[in-house]
C-alpha cells in the first residue's frame, strides 16, 4: 500500500467502524468496550506482555469512565486493531523485489526453506543469479489471464482462489508477477509471519495480518472494514473464500463469505461518494492444483480426528518444519511436478458474467448496468441484506467455477480409483473404519486399478470436453498405466508413508488417510455412481457423508 494512502485508509477505517458500532441498535458503549477487553484478556490469559498490559490498563479504567471516555477507548481499541492489521509496508522493498524479477520471486517461493536460501545465498552475494531451481517450469499459469489484465485497467480486482496449502499465497504472488501484475493485498494468518524471511517479503508485498485467535467481534469488524476500504481505494485484493485450507482435500463447497461481502459494499459506497476513479469491481475466481500437497498429512489427520470440527488454526504443520519444506521442494523439482494456477472467468459483485471489456452480461447474453442492482427508486441505496444475498449468489457461482477450473492430476485420479475399489471390496466396512483400521481386503490387483482409472479417464475426458473440469496433460492423453505410474512416482517421493504403493502386481495404501485426501479432489464429480457407491463426503464437503455406502 502506498504510504500516502495508508494513514488516510486507517483514518477512514477507524471512523467508519466507530460510527457503525455506535449506531448498532441497543448498543451500550460500556458493554461494547468491556466485551473487547474480555475477549482479549481471555486470549492473553497467563501472558505478561505489552499487549496484556495494554488490555489490563483499559480494564482498570473502564469501570468509572464517562461516555466520552468510553468513546475514546473504543477509538483507541479500533486504532490498535487497524494498525496491527495494516502492518508495515516499505515501498522500497516492494520496488526492489518487483524490479528484480524472477530470481527474487523464485527466491521468495523458496523462502519457506531456510536451507535452500542458505545454499543459494553465496551465488546471490557474488552478484550471480541464484542457483535455485527456476519455478517457471513448475508453475503453469493458464486460463483467462488476458482478461484479468484488461479488467485491471477498468476496475479493481478481487481474486478468489481455492485454498489448498500455505504455498498458495506465494504461488499466486508468483503467478501475478509472471502475468506482469503488481502484488495484490491479502490477509495472511499471523502464524505465517513467524518465518522471518517469508514474513518480511509477505508484509512488503501486500500481505496484511489476520489473527484468527482474536474472537472479539470488533476485531472482525475492523478487518472487514479494512478490506473494504482498500477496495474502495482501488487496491486489488486476494480473498480465500474457503476461509482456511481444505482439510479434506476436496474442493470448497461451503464458502465463508464475510470478506467477499466487502465487494458489493465497496462498490456501493464508491457509487455514493463518487470518490473512486475506477468504480467497477470484478470478482475473479482462480484455482490452485498440486500433484502433492505440502501439508496433506496434517490436514487430513485434522479432518479425520475432528470430523467437522477441524482446528481453524494449525500452527504445527509441515509448513513450519524447514526440513519437510526442503524435502517437498526437492521432490517437486526433481519430479518435474507441476503446480497449476488457473484464472477463471470473471464476474461482477452480483454474480453476472463479465466480458473482456468489463461489461456485466446477464444470463441471456445482454449487457446489464450493474449499478441498477443497488438502486431503488432511481437512487443508490445501502442495504446489508441485499448485499449479503448478492454475495451468497457470487459464492454459488464460485463453487461452480472451482469445479470447472480445477486441474485434476494423476495423484487425484489414481487415489480416487483405488479408494472406490477398496470401498467396493469392503462393503460391510464403513468408510471411517476402512480409513482408520483397514478392511478385509487391503490391496488391489494392479490390473483392476488400471481398469478403474481407465473408466474414470473416459468420464473425465468427456466432462473436460464439455468444459466441466480441466485435466493435467498426463490425464488428457496418457493411458491408465501412464497415469498410475506418474501417481505412484509422486506418492513414493515426499510423504512419510505412501498413499498408494506397488508391491509386485498389486497396489496397497501405506497411509489410507492420504489416499482419502488425494481422492477427495474428485468428490462432487459423481464418478462413484457407476460403481453403485454413494459420495464419500457430505454435500458441503466438510464431513464424511452420513451414509457413504452403496447406493440403493
Amino acid at each position, binding site marked *: 500500500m502506498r504510504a500516502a494512502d495508508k494513514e488516510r485508509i486507517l483514518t477512514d477505517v477507524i471512523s467508519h467502524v466507530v460510527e457503525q458500532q455506535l449506531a448498532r441498535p441497543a448498543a451500550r458503549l460500556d458493554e461494547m468496550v468491556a466485551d473487547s477487553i474480555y475477549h482479549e484478556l481471555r486470549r492473553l490469559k497467563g501472558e505478561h506482555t505489552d499487549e496484556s498490559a495494554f488490555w489490563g490498563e483499559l480494564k482498570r479504567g473502564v469501570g468509572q469512565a464517562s461516555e466520552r471516555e468510553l468513546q475514546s477507548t473504543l477509538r483507541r481499541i479500533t486504532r490498535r486493531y487497524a494498525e496491527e492489521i495494516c502492518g508495515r509496508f516499505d515501498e522500497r522493498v516492494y520496488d526492489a523485489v518487483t524490479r528484480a524479477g524472477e530470481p527474487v520471486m523464485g527466491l521468495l517461493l523458496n523462502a519457506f526453506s531456510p536451507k535452500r536460501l542458505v545454499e543459494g545465498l553465496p551465488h546471490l552475494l557474488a552478484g550471480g543469479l541464484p542457483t535455485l531451481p527456476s519455478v517457471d517450469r513448475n508453475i503453469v499459469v493458464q486460463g483467462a489471464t488476458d482478461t484479468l489484465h484488461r479488467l485491471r485497467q477498468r476496475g479493481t480486482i478481487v481474486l478468489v482462489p481455492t485454498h489448498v496449502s500455505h504455498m498458495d499465497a506465494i504461488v499466486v504472488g508468483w503467478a501475478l508477477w509472471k502475468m506482469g501484475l503488481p502484488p495484490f493485498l491479502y490477509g495472511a494468518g499471523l502464524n505465517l509471519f513467524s518465518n522471518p524471511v517469508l514474513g518480511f517479503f509477505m508484509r512488503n508485498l501486500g500481505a496484511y495480518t489476520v489473527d484468527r485467535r482474536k474472537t472479539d467481534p470488533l476485531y472482525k469488524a475492523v478487518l472487514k472494514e479494512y478490506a473494504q476500504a482498500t477496495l474502495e481505494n482501488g487496491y486489488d485484493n486476494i480473498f480465500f473464500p474457503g476461509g482456511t485450507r481444505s482439510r479434506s482435500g476436496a474442493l470448497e463447497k461451503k464458502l465463508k463469505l464475510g470478506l467477499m461481502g466487502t465487494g458489493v459494499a465497496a462498490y456501493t459506497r464508491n457509487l455514493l461518494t463518487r470518490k473512486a476513479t475506477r468504480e467497477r469491481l470484478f470478482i475473479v475466481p482462480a484455482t490452485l492444483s498440486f500433484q502433492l500437497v505440502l501439508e496433506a498429512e496434517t490436514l487430513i489427520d485434522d479432518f479425520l480426528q475432528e470430523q467437522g470440527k477441524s482446528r481453524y488454526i494449525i500452527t504445527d504443520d509441515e509448513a513450519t518444519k524447514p526440513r519437510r519444506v526442503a524435502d517437498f521442494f526437492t521432490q517437486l523439482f526433481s519430479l518435474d511436478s507441476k503446480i497449476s494456477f488457473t484464472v477463471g472467468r470473471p464476474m461482477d459483485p*452480483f454474480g453476472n458474467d463479465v466480458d473482456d471489456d468489463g461489461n456485466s452480461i446477464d*444470463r*441471456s447474453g445482454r449487457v446489464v448496468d450493474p449499478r441498477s*442492482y443497488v438502486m431503488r427508486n432511481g*437512487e443508490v441505496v445501502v442495504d446489508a*441484506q441485499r448485499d449479503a444475498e448478492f454475495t451468497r449468489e457470487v459464492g454459488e457461482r464460485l463453487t461452480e467455477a472451482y469445479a470447472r477450473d480445477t486441474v485434476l492430476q494423476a495423484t487425484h485420479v489414481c487415489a480416487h480409483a483405488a479408494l472406490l475399489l477398496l470401498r467396493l471390496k469392503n462393503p460391510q466396512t464403513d468408510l471411517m473404519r476402512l480409513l482408520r483400521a483397514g478392511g478385509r481386503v487391503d490391496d488391489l490387483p494392479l490390473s483392476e486399478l488400471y481398469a478403474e482409472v481407465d473408466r474414470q479417464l473416459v468420464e473425465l475426458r468427456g466432462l473436460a470436453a464439455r468444459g466441466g473440469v480441466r485435466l493435467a496433460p498426463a490425464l488428457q492423453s496418457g493411458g491408465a498405466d501412464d497415469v498410475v505410474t506418474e501417481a505412484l512416482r509422486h506418492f513414493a517421493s515426499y510423504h512419510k508413508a505412501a498413499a498408494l504403493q506397488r508391491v509386485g502386481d498389486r497396489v496397497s495404501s501405506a497411509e489410507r488417510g492420504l489416499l482419502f485426501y488425494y481422492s477427495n479432489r474428485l468428490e462432487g464429480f459423481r464418478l462413484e455412481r457407476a460403481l453403485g457407491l454413494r459420495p464419500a463426503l457430505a454435500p458441503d464437503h466438510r464431513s464424511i457423508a452420513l451414509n457413504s455406502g452403496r447406493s440403493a
Partner: protein
Amino acid sequence: MTTTNATSMARTRRVAILGGGRLAYGALGMVRAAVAAGSRFSLQGFGRSAAARAVLRDGGAVVVDSIAAAVDGADLVVVCVPALALHDVVAEAAATATGDQVVLHAARGVGAGFALPHQVLRGGSCWKKIVVIGGPIYLDDAGSGRILNAAIASRFDEALTAVRGLVKGAPIRLSATHDIVGVELWGALSNVGHLATGLAAGAGLSETDQGLLHVRALLEAGRFGRALGAEPATFSGLAGVGDLIPRRVSSQKMHRDVGFAIATHATTGGDTDVDIPVDLEGAVTAREGVAFARRQQVDAPLMRAVVAILDEGASVGSTLREVLDTDLGLQAA
C-alpha cells in the same frame, strides 16, 4: 440496515402487468385497493389475446403493444402467466428489463429440466429480485369480499417490501419467507397431488386414499426440497400443509377435474380421448420431476405413477394403489 444518499420523494410507482388471465384480474384488483388506500401506482399491461387486453383495460391499465414496452421503466413487474409460458415472456422482456426491477409471479409449475419459475426468469434476463406468491390463494374468495391468504417468498427483503406496498390496503394476509425454492416447489408439486387425487377419485379410491396421495406429494416435495436447498419448515407452513388443507377442502379445481376425467374415461371406456391441456402444470411437473429424480437420485413414486398413467397407459387404480402400498415410514425417511 438500509440507507439512501438522498431523501426519496413519494413518487408514483410504475407497475407492469404481463398477461390477462384470472391472476391479472386479481392483481389489478389488489392494486386498485392499494390506490384507494392512498398508494400511487400507474399501471401498464400487455396481453396477447383480446380478452386479456380487455381485462387489463377494465382494470385501469394502459395497454401497450409488447412485453418489452410494458416492462420498460417499470418498478414492479407482475407476471401473470403459467409456468410454461415464462420462458417466452422473459425472452421478450429481457430487452428492457433492469436489475432494480422487482418481479412478482404466481406460476405453479416448472420449466424444462425442472427449472423453477425464478430460475427461468433469472436465466433469461438480468432480473434477480424475484418474488413468488403462493399458498392457498383463492381469487373466488376475493370476489366474495373475503380476505385472501398467501405466502410470498423472495431472497431479497426489499422485494418483499415492494410487494407488500403493492397490496397495501387490499384484503390479503401475506406471510413472507426467503425460501423461494420451497414455495415454488410446493406450488408445482401440489398440482401433481391434485392431478393424482382427481385420478384417484375417478378410479373410485376412497377419500382417505385421496388425502394420502396429497401427503405423498408433500413428502416428495420435502425430498426434492432437500436436493434443491429448500427449508424443511416451508412445507409445514402456508406453502405446504397450510396450502394443502384449504385446497383439499375446496377440491373442485382444474387439476383435480382433469385427473377425474381421465380416470373416469379409462374406467368407462369413453369413445373420445380426454383432452389434457399441453401446458397442464401438474402433468409437466410430473414428467420433469421424474427426470430430475433420476438425475438427482431422489425417490419420486407419486410422480412416476402419474407419468405412467398419463403417458404410458398404466392402470389408474392399481398404479396409485402401488404408491399407497409403499411403507410411508420408510418413504418419509
